[in-house]
């Protein structure tokens, strides 16, 4: 059976430490925008941690929520692209074909999750910071839209390796950079079509919700709601 890549974000485990954010920058050659460009809303974070404040002092509450591309099955970003740069892969990824992209930014407008980032400039690294760049991931040039790929380079590498060894991919054999770094194991990545995988098991949890699920985008990222002590103790 074909793979269907998905992720579970356990909001009860997430601490907001943002290890995932830096891990993603290191893995995916995301350029640093700098203060001026960041002030213009051009900083790129394929994964971010949002915060929602409720209540006032002395009873404030915060909820953290990591947001990345939801890799929707009915992705609003795909049909709007005039050049088919936003494209749905057979394994369920919303991929971005950089050399088709002509920078209309329609996809970013259509995306309700605000997870697509436009390259307003050619990226630059002060020497020798460029030596860190991951050779497995292309650097995006000016005029091109970019977004989370579920670390497609890791997916491909693992698939090729498994095929060369004439075996099935095992659950947990590889994972995305964000999930690999996550100290509290709030991010779990895997194959939703493999019913024995951890991600498939957790995605069917009764705590599971979809981000803006009412829009009918059918995300492949499932959020597990925060628990409460009272529920666990008395319920």
């Amino acid at each position, binding site marked *: 059976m074909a793979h269907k890549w998905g992720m579970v974000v356990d909001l009860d*485990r997430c601490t907001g*430490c943002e290890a995932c954010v830096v891990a993603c920058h290191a*893995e995916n050659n995301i350029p*640093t*925008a700098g203060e001026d460009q960041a*002030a213009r809303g051009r900083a790129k974070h394929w994964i971010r941690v949002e915060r929602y404040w409720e209540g006032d*002092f002395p009873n404030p509450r915060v909820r953290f929520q990591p947001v990345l591309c939801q890799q929707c099955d009915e992705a609003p970003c795909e049909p709007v692209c005039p050049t088919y740069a936003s494209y749905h892969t057979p394994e369920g990824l919303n991929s971005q074909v950089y050399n088709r992209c002509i920078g209309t930014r329609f996809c970013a407008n259509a995306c309700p999750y605000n997870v697509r980032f436009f390259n307003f400039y050619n990226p630059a690294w002060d020497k020798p910071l460029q030596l860190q760049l991951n050779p497995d991931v292309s650097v995006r040039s000016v005029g091109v839209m970019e977004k989370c790929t579920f670390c497609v380079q890791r997916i491909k590498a693992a698939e090729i390796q498994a095929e060369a060894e004439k075996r099935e991919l095992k659950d947990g054999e590889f994972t995305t950079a964000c999930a690999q*770094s996550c100290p509290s194991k709030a991010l779990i990545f895997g194959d939703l079509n493999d019913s024995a995988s951890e991600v498939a098991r957790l995605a069917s949890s009764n705590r599971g919700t979809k981000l803006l699920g009412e829009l009918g985008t059918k995300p492949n990222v499932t959020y597990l709601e925060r628990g*409460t002590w009272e529920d666990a103790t008395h319920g």
Partner: protein
Amino acid sequence: MERRDFIKISALSGVMATLEGCRSAEKQLIRFIPEEELIPGIATIKPGVCTVCSAGCGLLVRVMQGEAEVVRHGQQGLIKMGLAKKLEGNPQHPVNQGKLCARGQASLQMLYHPDRITHPIKRTGPRGSGEFQAISWDDALKEVSAHLGTLQASGSANSLGFLSRPLSGQQGELMTKFLKAYGAPPPVWYQPFDEAVLRQANLFSFGHAALPTFDLHLADYVICFGADFLGTWNSPVAQSISYGEMRQGRPGRRAKLVQVETRMSQTGANADEWIACRPGMEGVLALGIAHVILAEKLAPQAPGSRPGSLIDGWQAGLPEYAPEAVEKQTGVSVAVIKRLAHELAQSGLAVAMIGGPPLAHTNGLFNALAVNALESLVDKSSILSFTPQTGDAAPVQATLAALHTLSAQPPQMLLLYEANPVFSAPPATRVREALAKIPYIVSFGSFIDETSVQADLILPDHAALESWIDSVAESGSSRAVASLAPPAVLPLHDTRPMPDVLLGLGRQLGGEVAKALPWATYDAMLRAAFVPLRTRPGSIDVKTDDDFWDAAQTQGGWWSSPSTSPPLAAVKRAPLSAASPQFAGAAADFPFYFLPYVSQSFADGSLAHLPWLQELPDVLTSAMWSSWVEINPNTGDRLGIKQGDLVEIASQQGSVRAAAVLSPGIAPDMVAMPVGQGHENFTRFASGRGANPLSILAPLTEQETGSLAWAATRVKLVRAGGPEQAKLVLFAGGMSAFPHEQERR
């Protein structure tokens, strides 16, 4: 055109093109023969040790072949070499178990930082001017050993100082041995947020002068007084791993986290219940809870030498800490105190912990002893324990006292390693002035910062990934852990590892120093220290010392089998009674408590030079690249301060300016600022950016330990300008505040 002309023109343009090509510096570079064998496109995974904080996490370094400009034998050239591409946690390592925090991930940029010092430099301009010129390693080392020799010969060997960031393991051992044999006082381990108060308290309460380890995955109830244990405190990765387990790792069982603090930290944001307590009164609150447990006999008192015996009135049931009295002092209601006591006692597996701001008051030790007493009352299953150690615990050292000694009697010569007190010590310590009085300063750091710019000579160290690195975990595991890693990559620049430079200087000095440091290289010293661990229980199963040494390098260190915690017993000591916290500045003139807090991105400020961390949105505010001050919205209304306005924060010691962030997570009578920005001189990414809250701290100290009471300053606030002047850069909201496009291209 004739055929001959065509050939001439072609030849000429060919030559011109070649000459043009030669003009670009890169094309003039020599190509060196590769020094290691690598297959292009295939990653090699090598062990590493994280040096960003003292937690001592194990790394896996992803190395791939690339082409770099390097210096070999004084000659610049191009070489195909292994380059570190990504840092991951080492899954075998007992502390971080394959995980790694944002700061650890970003430390990769230290290796490739564009402002690294690439070769030895010697000061040419006045002190602090930043004017240096290149000097050869031979000349530089001759100069240092001449200075060391002269100083020793003139009988003032005790006037050599060594100021370093804390180093566990053999690097620290090497410095200590060097200084002892030379005749100088021991090294000063400088860090602005030292844990002297907690180590002292744990020595009194439990008999261990160390930071504790928490097996949170065993707990059903956690009450935490101020420690940001998921963010920056102690061993955050290890603590976050077990936090994840206590939340969702045990089906049907989910622990409760209660956080007591005055400004909501990242940890507080994750709590099930967040309790605001008056600053410095956390110990009183802990004893109020203990009072209810004792009075209502909710938990049996264990016999023996218990931490409670260190608190005045414990045996009598803490009569002074009745909930009504405690409510008056802490601002926490009687109902809440009683409920917490019942919840703690009923949950069989509870733990109380303390860290951060409650210890940074003049009564910090009392707060720590009080929480330790509550901990031993409610923790029946050793959720708090101490990581077994391979060597003796270092004596508790309060940083501030050492700095005062430095200022009072500046040494004749100072060796400096990655400590930056000019940036992070309160101005009243007058470190900058003291450095000006020191005739000769040598720095081993890789970057120019506010302190190392004062040096006369800089002998840059290799980056951590280019060096032999070891570290000993003080906490975070039930195993004794000594991490070890050989260099993951070859050096990029004309730098030399600090330990090897010290060993070389020792040989040149001869006499006692050479005798104390008989190793030719630092890895020989490491081997001598690691090989005896082979015979310890649970060690790596190999036949010979050589095999053990190889295996330790491959696995990323040595660790023992899990062991039960060493026994906890309180030291006999006169009991302490409650002391009120003192603050610098009268409440009438300076109406706000001031809390500088360890930043999620920059820790104590030593990571502000890494662009990934500058652009990392703060998780509670989404601020990047800037400084801000957190103010309660009601306070903002009262003072006419809006989100993003420029605010001046003034203490008796001085003032700083930063953008206002209105936050419901802070008390109306407190303002808080993250530490890390406000560097005058610390690479292109951090210099001249934001403000440094440590620069307005009063030099108040914790009464018993002499540690800096960094939460004991009071300030006043005034609006100093609008958002245009404040330049608060937020990630969230960036799109809605999208400015008109002036710079179209």
